[in-house]
């Protein structure tokens, strides 16, 4: 009796499985298992290793990260690749059946064997994996992945280049591959022999590549004699990248040109071959990758260069459509690294040990895009005295201004003695802010609540914040006053659509109308609940977890916040490109139809949120 087909037979017309030969399809079909999952059951727990690739036959699967649905997979979609090949911490993604779901399960072993035997299939799988990784990288909560895209090619394993002369035979090339366990050889044409160092630049020579697949095609399929020279058949349009280029770029280049290896150069000379498999090994194995490139700056001047690179990087990332939350993460990481390194370079060791450098406001929340005003301070250990303190703090502020971080208009900077003081003085200030609230005090409290430690002893900040929370009783009056600024600016709403349309040509301050109300309203709610989170979106989800906000509403708000931040970044990138002052103004006429509609929806949502805040904190009484 012959085996019948699977019920709802596996669809081989869908990529990447369409790349398989009939024989391979048959072998894959025979190795498939089935998984049945009821609605709302967890298919893959967060952080769980998978032993197979899941291909949805029927139903719907959601990839969830935190409170967000990161991806949805319907019939023919596959998932679980990261959990299969990646590190076990692959982004903390959980896969949940959103409906009754049936999946085909492709065992790891079968997948690996097919990928080995069928380069086109492997390519498809790896590209898909690359896409997934990039999608992952642009997700909010994945700081480690964010760092990954900053990794340099240098960090990946490079295969030493195997050279053969153009006059060598195909057999020699195959032999060289076998001997060096390489999957490709580089073909040197021209008088490269006298060229000194291998791979050294030589004007008369050109370098081509010949892969194992090429060999197979040439000899087995085309029937070329094995003693014919490699010179004429090698491909000379090499895709090369410098060793200091980003791995991210390598990934994009491979995907764009559908190749599985790149030639890597250093100072123009070939130093190795980067294989897709090694690239993916590196990208999927977080623990091997250092969060960001090691900070090797030895002087403030080195830092200045690094700091300048950030703007270009943001523009590139923004240009390639990377999500704004990811950019914010990246900027946060880089800025904090620069602040920390600068402080370490300027401060004497005992100051470093007895103080805590903090960033506040949007920097503390990890939400700054591009370079925003400095909002920083220094908490000194009680009883510690640094003789050179004033010079250090003045130099710190001056250097940051030099790096392109504008000074804070409110003078909230370490160079201001009000923000460089002992812990006890900070506690006094907090006491004052809480019990004698005025406009400045409220704002100071707000930005201090967002503070994050950047360098030195973080326990000093933790103690100051602990004091802050302990002083907050359930004082309705205080919270009413604290939350009130959330309503300070008008948010034009879609309700008055006509009115709004007429004012279309007027620029709207997106920060005042949209972003600030969300940030501050959420901050007030977070403070009321004594929460430790500093990031607005994290606070949002934490509030949803505590039932303060409805989960659906929290999701919409988070989305609106992200969208508004994106618009703001867009406005800023555009305006700073034009050489004008960075501003927060958005003109309706500059927006596309889709953006405009979504913008209106977002403002409507902000309006709704403001009503919620007004009700919650009794602001209308």
């Amino acid at each position, binding site marked *: *009796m012959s*085996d*019948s*087909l*699977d*019920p*709802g*037979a596996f669809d081989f017309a869908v990529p990447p499985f369409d790349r398989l030969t009939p024989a391979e399809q048959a072998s894959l079909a*025979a*190795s*498939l*298992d*089935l*998984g*049945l*999952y*009821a609605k709302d*059951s967890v298919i893959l727990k967060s952080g769980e290793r998978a032993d197979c690739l899941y291909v949805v*036959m*029927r139903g719907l699967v959601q990839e969830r990260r935190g409170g967000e649905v990161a991806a949805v997979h319907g019939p023919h979609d596959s998932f679980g690749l990261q959990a299969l090949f990646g590190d076990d911490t692959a982004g903390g993604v959980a896969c949940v059946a959103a409906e*009754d779901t*049936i999946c085909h*399960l492709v*065992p790891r072993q079968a997948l690996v064997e097919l990928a080995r035997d069928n380069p086109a299939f492997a390519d498809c799988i790896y590209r898909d994996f690359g896409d997934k990784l990039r999608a992952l990288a642009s997700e909010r909560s994945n700081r480690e992945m964010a760092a990954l895209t900053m990794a340099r090619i240098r960090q990946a394993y490079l295969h030493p280049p195997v050279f053969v002369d153009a006059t060598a035979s195909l057999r020699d090339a195959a032999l060289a591959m076998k001997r060096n366990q390489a999957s490709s050889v580089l073909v040197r044409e021209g008088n490269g022999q006298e060229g000194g160092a291998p791979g050294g630049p030589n004007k008369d020579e050109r370098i081509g590549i010949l892969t194992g697949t090429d060999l197979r095609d040439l000899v087995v399929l085309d029937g070329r004699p094995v003693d014919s020279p490699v010179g004429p058949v090698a491909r000379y349009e090499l895709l090369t990248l410098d060793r200091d280029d980003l791995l991210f770029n390598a990934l994009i280049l491979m995907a764009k040109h559908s190749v599985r290896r790149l030639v890597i150069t250093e100072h123009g000379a070939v130093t190795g071959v980067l294989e897709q498999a090694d690239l993916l090994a590196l990208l999927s194995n977080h623990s091997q990758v250092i969060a960001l490139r090691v900070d090797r700056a030895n002087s403030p001047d080195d830092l200045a260069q690094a700091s300048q690179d950030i703007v270009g990087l943001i523009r590139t990332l923004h240009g390639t459509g990377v999500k704004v939350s990811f950019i914010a993460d990246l900027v946060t990481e880089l800025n904090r690294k620069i602040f920390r390194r600068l402080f370490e370079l300027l401060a004497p060791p005992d100051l470093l040990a007895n103080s805590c450098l903090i960033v506040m406001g949007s920097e503390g929340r990890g939400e700054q895009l591009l370079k925003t005003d400095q909002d920083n301070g220094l908490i000194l250990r009680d009883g510690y005295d640094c003789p050179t303190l004033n010079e250090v703090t003045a130099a710190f502020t001056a250097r940051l201004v030099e790096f392109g971080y504008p000074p804070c208009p409110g003078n909230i900077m370490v160079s201001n003695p009000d923000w460089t003081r002992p812990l006890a003085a900070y506690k006094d200030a907090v006491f004052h802010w809480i019990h004698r609230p005025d406009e400045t005090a409220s704002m100071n409290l707000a930005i201090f609540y967002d503070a994050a430690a950047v360098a030195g002893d973080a326990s000093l900040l933790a103690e100051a914040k602990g004091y802050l929370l302990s002083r907050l009783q359930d004082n309705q009056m205080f919270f009413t006053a604290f939350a009130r600024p959330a309503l300070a600016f008008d948010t034009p709403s879609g309700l008055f659509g006509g009115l709004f349309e007429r004012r279309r040509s007027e620029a709207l301050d997106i920060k005042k109308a949209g972003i600030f109300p969300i940030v501050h309203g959420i901050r007030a709610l977070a403070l009321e609940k004594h929460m430790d989170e500093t990031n607005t979106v994290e606070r949002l989800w934490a509030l949803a977890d505590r039932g303060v906000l409805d989960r659906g509403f929290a999701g919409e708000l988070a989305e609106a916040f992200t969208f508004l931040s994106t618009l703001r970044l867009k406005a800023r990138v555009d305006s700073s490109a034009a050489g004008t002052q960075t501003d927060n103004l958005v003109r309706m006429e500059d927006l596309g139809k889709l953006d405009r509609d979504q913008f209106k929806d977002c403002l409507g949502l902000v309006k709704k949120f403001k009503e919620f805040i007004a009700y919650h904190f009794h602001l209308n009484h």
Partner: protein
Amino acid sequence: MPIDFTARATGQGLTDPDYAFLLSEEDTGERVAIHCEATSYDKATADLRSVAAVRIRGPRILASQHLALSFWPTEPAEPALARLLRFIGNRPLVGYYLDFTVAMLDRLVQPMIGMPLPNETVEVSSLYYARKTKIPGKNAVDLRLDSILRDLDLPPRTGDDAYAHALAAAMVCLRLEA
């Protein structure tokens, strides 16, 4: 031949110690969906033609490791049955119209090892009936396998053979227990 339930439960009469694993207490966490084809529906006289079995582990149907056996009147059934029994082990059996499959097997297994199959059984049409009758109503329950598959939004059977039936039974079982 009346079924001796006591013997079935305790394994009395097992003459071949090689098959003691059928009575093992060990919990594999697995079940086996099984179906047979025979020359008629009369379990006393029909000849067994084929048997297919597939293991169920958790939410998974281990389709890649399924067993499909054919029986010919001219060939001894024992070697194939021995494979089947090792495949099944002490796992509960799942099937559609399972009584028939078990009865057909028992006719051959009893003389071979001295006792009928001791395995627990799960009849998927009973599971389905129980599910349907929970909802009050006077409608008759359509217990045909294909109707059940359709009603549960499961993929239709693509074959008419024993394996296709076993697979369908496995899916019905998993869907109804979830």
